[in-house]
């Protein structure tokens, strides 16, 4: 069974969200990383872009597959994990820490109510 930290929120598209004040750190879950296999490219929208909840914010590509990334909360991209350009394997090896993908300044806190908690997420995988 994939590890699902209970301090995070989850989307049905297999992104995780960590909320600190009004900043959401976003990545993909271990379940998603394992299904994709070895990740080689992560391409995301540019800094300061405004996104609505569940808009596509990038693509993640493994040796065998490619998948769209959807932002779990509305807001502005304030940081992109640049380490991933040279080290995409961080997402496979440590998806909840070193493998975070973007940080978003949340524009609508109500979005959080539509996300899943860890036990709800566990049920859909």
């Amino acid at each position, binding site marked *: 069974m994939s590890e699902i930290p209970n301090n995070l929120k989850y989307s049905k598209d297999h992104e995780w969200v960590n909320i600190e004040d009004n900043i959401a750190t976003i990545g993909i879950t271990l379940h998603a990383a394992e299904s994709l296999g070895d990740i*080689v490219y992560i*391409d995301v929208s540019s800094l300061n872009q405004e996104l609505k909840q569940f808009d596509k914010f990038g693509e993640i590509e493994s040796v*065998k597959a490619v998948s769209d990334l959807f932002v779990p909360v509305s807001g502005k991209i304030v940081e992109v994990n640049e380490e991933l350009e040279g080290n995409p*394997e961080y997402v496979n090896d440590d998806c909840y820490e070193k493998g975070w993908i973007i940080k978003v300044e949340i524009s609508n806190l109500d979005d959080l109510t539509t996300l899943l908690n860890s036990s709800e997420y566990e049920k859909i995988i």
Partner: protein
Amino acid sequence: MSKTIFYEQHLDNNAKMVDFAGWDMPINYPLGIIKESNIVRNSSGFFDVSHMGRVEIRGNGAESFIDKILPIDINSLKIGSAKYTLLINEKKEILDDLIIYRFTDYFLLIINASNTVEDINWMQSVKGKEVEINNITSETGMLAIQGPDVIKIFNSILNNAIEDLGRYKFKNILIENNDIFVARTGYTGEDGVEIIFKSEFGYKIWELLINNGVTPCGLGARDLLRIEAGLHLYGHEITKKSNPIDIGLKRLLESESSKYINNDYIHSENIKKGLFSMIGLVVTDRGIPREENEIYYKDSVIGKVTSGTHSSTLRRSIAIGIVKKDFNIINNTVRIKVRDKFLNATITKLPFYKRSKK
């Protein structure tokens, strides 16, 4: 779905299993495709390839039957040797690519899992009375053991039993009184062997390999390695309708025998012209071209991608493609349409990777 004799070992090793031509096969183990590929390039790995078809051609008519159905020069195929070749039916359709091994009084064909039934049916339909076709796939197991350390490891386990075994040669050896077929062939671009044994001996071989530090690798790594080595895969680079010349396999059409059913075809002007070329593509942008992606030169489509991956050896994405012959210009830049964007790529010679010979 069919299971090989190593199914339990795959599950015990936490493999990710996928349907491969009706077989439940490991695409990778927890190490992942990239690490598994690197192990084969740098030391030694092994693949369960028991799903591949193993067919014996026996009987007094075996030699003339082979001469009739394959484009090889049968006189150059010595006992104890193997050849890579094509099975082409009387409609000039390529049914398969395969390796033929010549024993003292019979032949062994190793064919693709996806084509096993069709190949055997066709061979049955064109064989004479004095030819026997035995499908030994289900009673045997097969492993491909590949990497620069493999020969050394085998010789140390087996008392130098394969010290004198050249490339594309094979022999039968005994391990714990079990007869094992060992061929110095492979599909990774590395040195190594492919072995066949009775099913019931499979678990012993698996343990022997693990105990000697050889790593189990999945079919995902095998595909990546064969693309780096510029090797064809049936259903991708080779299709029923392919002209062997177009896909760089002219050298396989060596038969001069009047008995060969496609003798006229392989010596015809028509086949020799060829309209396409198989090319290597090194991608200079981020992203992986996938099968069927169109290849553009300026604004025109010049061909299609047949296989694509991310090369861990080159640290770039690479692809094999088939393009109109006139556009096969080494170092030319082309564009590959991948989903909604274009990736720039440079045409290169195949293979992408060649091992250094010691």
